Structure formats: C-alpha cells, structure tokens
C-alpha cells in the first residue's frame, strides 16, 4: 500500500512539472491557435539562465529565481515580438514549423553559450527532503506541486474575472470579432507568450533542481504534449490536470508493468483517450457549419 502511495505521489510530483509546461502550451494554443514546439526549450533556456545566475550570486536563492523569471518575461516578449508576430495571418502549419525551427535554435544556442555537460543547479534550497507521512518528497517537488495548484487557481480566476482573461477567451473564440470589439490581438498574444514563458521557466527551474541542467532538459517538453492533448489543447486548466495524470500513469506503468514501457505510457494513454474523446478530456469540440 505504501508502495502504491509512493508511486502515485512521486508521479504527481513529476506530473506537476509536465502540467506546468502543458499549461503554457495550452495557453498559447488557446490565444494564438498554434502549438509551440519550443516550450521545452524555453524551460531549458531559463534553467540555464538560473544556473548562470546561481554561479554569480551564490547564497541568494530568491534573487536567482527572480532573475530567471525576469529573463523568461524577456524571452516570451522577444519570441512573440520578433518571431511570432510577423507570422500573424500565415497558415497554422507554417507558424508551427517556425516554433520547431525556434526549438532547434534554442537547443543549439544553449550548447553554444554553455556546454554539453550536465550541471547541478545548486541554490541552497529545493534539495532537502520533506516527509509527508511515510513518503519523502524533495522541497522542489513539493514546490512544483504547489505551483501547479496555484497556477490552476490563478488561471481559473484569470479567465473568469480579469478583463484580459476574458479578452483572451474572446480572441480565442473569434479573433476578428474580438478585434472589432477593440481588443488588440497582438497584445493578447504577447501576454500569452509571456505568461507561458514564465510558467515554462518555473517548470525548468524545478526540473533543474530535481535532476540537472543539461541540453536534454528539453525532453520534458515532449512529455507535456501528451499532457496537453489529454487535457485538451485549448484547455489551460485541463492541461495542468493532464500533466498530473500522465505523471501518475507513467509511474504506475513503471512501478507495476515494465520500466521500459514507462516512457511511452503517456502516449498510449492519449491514444486510448483520443479514440473516445477526440478533443481531449476537457477540450471543446469544433462545431462545423455547412
């Protein structure tokens, strides 16, 4: 029994990181209609920046995290303004390819600026073990779970109550109509990219604290795809839950079936779910008009 609980809890912990990245993916999809294939790379870049900052300012964990988040705001804005905005109005396929190219650039760029060696992100906190009953969790795992919960609550309130959140929903529903109503789509896109970069950055920092900073940190982005598909590409909250479900599914597959099946467990789950619900668990079905 304790074994099962341990498996589920550590599944939730890793799933929280998938979930955060998946929420960023869904946020961009919801407001701009494209899947950002560079989401994992954004997380990787911020983790590297955090690592550099940690080297410059040892003993100031909050400065490091704060600095990294400022960097992710800049990153999000820069990507939106310099790369994505000029692509407005181009076919979705083309813009998706742009994000793939961006992923290639970020991956190689990180190796160019830093190096291919794995590094430990040591900011003095996050690595200690907290006991929840008989189950041990690292501080950063707990923080990832709490951040995911905060993000879920925050986005729920944001879409429901804030002016920008409502505007974002309007742009998602019909960008032209929203524009006619005086909502600037470009501004909404900038906000979506920035917010998405920030949560990807947070996820990257958690990931780096728990594992390491290395060029293949971007793999975590690949995991968030099943998460967001499971939850529904256009459902920000659903994607967050989807991440947790994928994390737990992986750990149960690894813990009870075979370790080798663990890495593809998420993909098997989404194929099964999509056959029943073609738009994910929480996604909205497109309504076609003839």
């Amino acid at each position, binding site marked *: 029994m304790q074994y099962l609980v341990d498996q589920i809890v550590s599944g939730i912990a890793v799933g929280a990181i998938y979930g955060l990245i998946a929420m960023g993916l869904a946020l961009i999809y919801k407001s701009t209609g494209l899947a950002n294939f560079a989401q994992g790379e954004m997380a990787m870049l911020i983790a590297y920046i955090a690592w550099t900052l940690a080297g410059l300012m040892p003993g100031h964990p909050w400065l490091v995290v704060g600095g990294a988040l400022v960097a992710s705001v800049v990153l999000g804005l820069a990507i939106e303004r310099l790369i994505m905005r000029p692509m407005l109005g181009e076919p979705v396929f083309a813009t998706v390819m742009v994000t793939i190219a961006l992923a*290639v650039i970020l991956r190689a760029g990180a190796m*160019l600026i830093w190096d291919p060696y794995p590094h430990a992100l040591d900011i003095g906190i996050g690595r200690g073990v907290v006991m929840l009953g008989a189950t041990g969790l690292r501080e950063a795992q707990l923080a990832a779970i709490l951040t995911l919960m905060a993000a879920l609550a925050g986005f729920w309130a944001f879409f429901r109550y804030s002016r920008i959140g409502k505007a974002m929903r309007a742009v998602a529903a019909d960008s032209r109509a929203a524009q006619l109503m005086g909502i600037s789509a470009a501004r909404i896109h900038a906000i979506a990219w920035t917010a998405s970069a920030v949560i990807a950055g947070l996820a990257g920092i958690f990931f780096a604290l728990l594992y390491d900073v290395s060029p293949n940190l971007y793999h975590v982005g690949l995991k968030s795809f099943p998460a967001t598909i499971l939850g529904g590409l256009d459902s920000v909250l659903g994607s967050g839950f989807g991440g947790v479900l994928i994390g737990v599914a992986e750990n149960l597959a690894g813990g009870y079936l075979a370790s080798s099946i663990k890495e593809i467990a998420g993909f098997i789950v989404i194929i099964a779910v999509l056959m029943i619900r073609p738009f994910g668990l929480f996604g909205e079905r497109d309504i076609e008009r003839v």
Partner: protein
Amino acid sequence: MRSGHFKESIPGLIMLSDSVPVWVWSGLLLVALALAPYAMNAYALSFLILILITGTGALGLHVLTGCTGLISLGHVGFLLLGAYAYAVPVAKFGLPPLLGFFFAGAVPALAGLVVGLPSLRLKGLYLAITTLAFAFIISHLIIEMSWLTDGTRGITVPRPRLLGLDFDSDARFANLCLLVAVLTLFAVLNLGRSRVGRALIAVRDNDIAARAMGINLEAYKLKAFLTSAFVTGIAGALFGIYLSFVSIEGFPFLMSIEALAILIVGGLGSALGTVLGTVFIVLLPEASRIAFGLLGSQAERLFSLGAHEIRSVLYGVVIILFLRFEPRGLLGLWHDVRRLWVNWPLRY
C-alpha cells in the same frame, strides 16, 4: 518558339507537360544523374544518395500532408518499419531483396492503416501528436520484439542484388535510388492528375464539399495513409541499405521534423516543390559549412568547439526566414524567377 498555351486535343490537355523543352531537359538531367555517380567522389555521392532517398521519403509525406492535409509528426516510424521490414527477411532469413522491398512497402502500409484509423476522428494537431505517439510506440515495439528484430543490437544489411544486378558499389546503389526516386515522383505526379489525387486534395480543401461530390472521406484518408506509408517505407529500406546497419538510433526523431521542413520550404502541396525542398534541406548543412569556412580560419578557431552548434542555429534561422519571407516556398521563388526571366525588362 511557342507562344501561349494552345492545345489541340484533350490528351494534350492532361499531359504532365506538353512542352518539348521540358521533356528534353528532364531527360538530360536524368541521364546526368545516372552517370554522375561514376565521376563523383564518395562524399559528393553520399549527398546525391541522401537527396534521392530523402526525396522519396518526403514525397511519401507529401501524399499525406501536402495533398491530404493530414499532418504527421511520426513519419520516422514508417521509415523505421520499412527499414526493419527489409532488413529482417533479407539479412536475417536470407530472402531475396526484391521480396524485402515488397515487405518494406507492405508492412508500413498496413501500419499506416492502423495509424490512419484515429485520423477519421482526429483533426489537425491532435492527429499530429497521435502520429508522434505512434513513432515512439513503433520504436518501443522494435526493441521489445528482439526475437525478431535483434532489439537494440541492430541488423547489418548487405547491399542488394536485384534481377541479376549487383548494387554493391555506391555508384550502382545511387542508380537504384535514382530509379526509385524517379518512379515515385512520376507516380505522385500522375496521382495528382488522376481521380484519387483530386479526391485527396478535395478532402484537404473542403471535406464537406468533397463528401457531397461522392468522395468517401474515411476511405480516402486511409488510402492517403496507406500510400504515404508505403512510399516512406521503401525510402526507409533504402536508407537502411545505405547505412548498411539498421538500428533505432539510425533513425532519430528529428527526421520527421526535417521531412516537414522539406515540404514547407519547397512549397506545401506540390510534388516539384517537395523535390526542390529536399535538395535545399539536405544541402543546407553543407552550404552553411562552406559559408562558415569562408569566414576564415580565424573565425573557425574562435569557435573551435562551437562550430557545430553555430551551424544548427543557422539551419533554424534559414527555415524561419523562409517561412517569414517566402511562404510559397522554393517553388514560388522559382515561378518568380521564371516570370522575371520571360518578361524582363518589363515587370509583367
């Protein structure tokens, strides 16, 4: 000199091209490509072979993504299946290579039907990510079924002997790849001007209208998957033979992305664009290597350990610039150049 497009008969209207110069030049190009391998060094030849194999595979993806509008991120799965479907019977059980090529097409085609089933219900990015999942599952299955595939150890594949002809030298093998690539190109071009090809395009552009025209959407989406997987599988077999060693690691996931980049850069939806895109994308790393070399040894030393990453960055930047400034792809660029050539000094 020809003036304008006047055709005198219906057969003339449906020809691939009614222009004599086009046929003559294509023929000359073909002869040149067939003879060039015997005069090239092995390095240049490896690019030619890669272009021919990649082109075949990209045409396979073109049928699915370009014609039918179904995005696949998992095409590397079909390549892998094709390579293994050739390697297992030929290298492990000693069956004739011709039979191996049949399996290399048929096995992925069957898998294509299975992967195609979700496409009846899924759209756009949902489908794209399902195909991605498929690619991961295929490589997992290949590792798991080690009694058949030798798992992670990989299979060494000899050069084939077909119909009494040996293809052991690279030049001969290039001829084989040329034959396959040209046949594929012809088949895809022909498909484009026949009933099935038009139906696929109809499914892509407007599925409801397509259905009203009597097109069975489900059947045609499955046909697109089947055809695409078949062609891609053959390319996979050729790639395995070229590598002479078939293993999971020889087929990295990036190949799926590269294939999509080829379609985009070439001009989505056009077979000729796919050919242009293939040449461009395969040669891009080499071109950037040369460009980098021109900067001089100073620059090269400065980035002694980073030159490779710089090339990767360049690769990404070129793709973004292309999408940004020439969304019609290389084919569009080619049309512009041709128009400029014909009309100059007038603008139009």
